[in-house]
């Protein structure tokens, strides 16, 4: 009762009253706020304090002299990256591949979650669930090996199969156009099962009464999925997509470098910001230039999250993060 009063008081009062209400609120629920203190401290120490390190992106950073002793060089560290003629292509690849990954991984994850929910047999369900999650724990280096056994022109499984049917070998490793598809398939195989966990949990949280009511009204299984499960997953989908947007300017270095590596023939479609920067700075090993690119990627990601969140708030207010 008293909480309700406090709320209505805050809402109805003017600016001065509001400030006053803030202290009142603290006095009233101070101990509850105190509970959040460890979490806030944690974020402060591990997320906000390190942001000070961004300053090395604007310095000619030397570890021995430290942040205080290194020379300030303004935007010089951003030059090589911004002036590179390939930057548009590489940024394009990064966005394109990540967009494909986000869209198809989400679709696959939702399908898996729905299918797993519909499975009846308890044991079969558990085994199936474990099997689809398993690939998430296979390292990219191993995935790259598996792929090469599959796709190699001379000894690859696929090409041997094709040869058995008298079809000419496909040179996967020389044909960049096939790689966005290959990478998306690999990404789904590797990540969709693991990604389905959140959706599974959301579905489990849906009130069974709704399904029961639908059954009584004569809804088929498919109709229940189409009109109950999927609409109720919308909020979660938008939320997770929003979070994924923040990283859309970060190429999946671990994956692409392990699989494509230094195969220059595939660069036209697979070279992303992270792999490009790795090659550009591999010999120089310059921390400041690398930090500059990282900063650049985060800023763009941040802008994107803000924009998409704004859109989400307009069209589906429940799903917006803030």
């Amino acid at each position, binding site marked *: 009762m008293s909480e309700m009063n406090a709320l209505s008081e805050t809402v109805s009062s003017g600016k001065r009253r509001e400030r006053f209400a803030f202290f009142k609120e603290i006095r009233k629920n101070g*101990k*509850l706020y*105190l*509970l959040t*203190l*460890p979490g806030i*401290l*944690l974020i402060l120490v591990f997320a906000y304090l390190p942001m000070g390190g961004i300053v090395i992106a604007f310095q000619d950073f*030397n*570890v*021995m002299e430290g942040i205080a002793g290194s020379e300030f060089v303004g935007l*010089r560290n951003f*030059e*090589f*990256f911004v*002036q*590179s*003629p*390939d930057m548009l292509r590489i940024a394009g690849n990064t966005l394109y591949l990540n967009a494909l990954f986000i869209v198809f991984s989400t679709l696959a994850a939702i399908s898996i979650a729905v299918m797993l929910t519909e499975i009846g047999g308890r044991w079969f369900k558990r085994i199936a669930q474990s099997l689809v999650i398993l690939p998430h724990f296979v390292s990219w280096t191993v995935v*790259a*090996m598996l792929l*090469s*056994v599959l796709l*190699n*022109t*001379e*000894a*690859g499984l696929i090409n*041997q199969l094709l*040869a058995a049917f008298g079809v000419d*070998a496909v*040179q*996967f*490793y*020389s044909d960049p156009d096939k790689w966005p598809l290959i990478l998306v398939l690999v990404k789904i195989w590797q990540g969709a099962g693991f990604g389905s966990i959140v959706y599974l949990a959301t579905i489990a949280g849906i009130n069974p009464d709704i399904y029961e009511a639908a059954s009584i009204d004569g809804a088929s299984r498919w109709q229940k999925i189409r009109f109950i499960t999927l609409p109720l997953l919308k909020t979660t989908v938008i939320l997770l997509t929003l979070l994924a947007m923040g990283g859309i300017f970060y190429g999946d270095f671990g994956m692409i470098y*392990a*699989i*494509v*590596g*230094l*195969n*220059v*023939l595939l*660069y036209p479609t697979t070279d992303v910001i992270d792999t*490009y920067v790795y*090659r*550009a*700075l*591999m*010999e*120089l*090993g*310059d*921390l400041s*230039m690398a930090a500059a690119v990282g900063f650049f990627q985060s800023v763009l990601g941040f802008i994107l999250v803000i924009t998409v969140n704004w859109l989400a708030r307009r069209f589906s207010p429940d799903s917006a993060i803030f």
Partner: protein
Amino acid sequence: MKRKGKGPTALLLVLTLLATLTAACTGNEGNAPEAGEQTEGPNGANAAEAADNAAPPALDPVELKVKLFGEKPTDMDAVVAEFESRSKEALNTTLDVTFDVAAEYRNKLKLMLAAGEEIDLAFDAPWWDLNANVSKGYYHELDAYFNNDDYPGLKAAFTPEYLEANKIDGHIYAIPVTNTFYDIPVVLIRKDLREKYGMEPVDSYADLKQFLDQVLANENPKAFVPWGGGRNTWYHVFANFDTKQTHYRAFPFEITGTGALFNLVLSEDGKQVLGATTLGDPDEAYSGFPAPLNEPDFFYDHYDTKVEYRKYLPSDPLAQNQTTTVEGGAHETTLNSVASDRQKLKETYPDADYEIFVYNDAVRAMESGAIATGFKAWNFLTVPKSSKNVERTMKFLDWVFASPDHHDLFELGIEGTHWEKDGERYYRVTEQTPDYAFPAYEMTWNPQLSRINGNNDEETLKYIEYEYDQDSYYRMALSGFTFNPENVKNEIAKVQPKFDELRPVLEAGLDPEWRESAGKLNAQMRALGLENIREELIKQAQDYLDSGGQ
């Protein structure tokens, strides 16, 4: 009433959480000084007392952290235990040797150095980041420990000439690790196949081509290609060895670290830099050079050969993991790896065998002064600034290099188990040799102490002996020169990825029109600041020559 009851509980909860947090933080802090005390103690004691005390008191125990790359030998712990028991009285030192995958080691080391993690001995190399790491001040300068009677082992194993050639900025920041000053690259030919085709041993490029054609014609192309392996599969083969690199530096001995690789040409007396050219430069750029260096083809016609040899490579020469999928009739390696390559082959095909083809004519004829070198090692050991045990680390190394017995223990393992003596210079492998495959090239190789693998075939042994002979070498131009990228690093960061995009294509012989592609690349690189790098390289090389460098 209920509300009041919650208060103390909440407060307690918060306090507990905070306590755990702060405990986690101070836990680390608490450890640090402990480690410091433990390690600083002997250090201080050593510096003060070792100098005036002939028989130093028993040393405090210390653990040295050693970082290497590669796979940890199965019996590494046994060998370390043997070392610890043998050296207990002299050193009282234990070792913590860790191995990382090569690809990760390089980056990990950079991070550990940047973070100041405590390491006592670490592998580094100029083909990774040694020079950059030295210029960043990550490593201790070790001048005082060499040529010093307190360290007799180091004094004997590292001659002043050997150290002089391996100094960086005039000081010893890194300890050279090599057994010879060049490891002669050779082509390994499947002897059994050659005999099957009724051919004489391969003695020229013409013979090699004939052999590869035979493989192409006779073997199943699905599982077996003439030249297995993929990217970087040609090492120095087809390079131009007709002229000694006494007044120029070019493939395969280019100055590295310049983004695009240059041919750097000096006047014949070696005093003046005449210019630097790179892939795709117009013919006029070469006109000021003395013959035969005035033709771009002198430097680049090996790319024509590579196009011609393209058909012998696997279909996906640039694919990642190519080496794991296809086998070959021939491949390139160096003398030191012949024995281990042969061992691997025999594991799969007991009846198969390799023989070597040395493709550098002068070296094949074992002429004296035929091998180009800067008398520089390729691999180095460093003591990072974060180490608090510099003296103890150097004492440890002194012990390793003090006698052949000590040295053999680390390089080859326990005698009688991992290896057997074969005269003064050679060793023989045993069944347990694979259990101690120590990467000696990262830590113990030494021109005077390293034994030669007596299990090599006679031909290979002949060349290894030739390689160990100082008279087989000649000094390359600019042998002590290293390029400092600092002034042009923006240009390098832009040019490097461009250059690296075309080069593997040319190396794999995938582009018959490579001259045209190189011209295009050259124009792009010029737009990205190639000329600044070129100027900087010429300037630095000239400065080096003017200050008396060789």
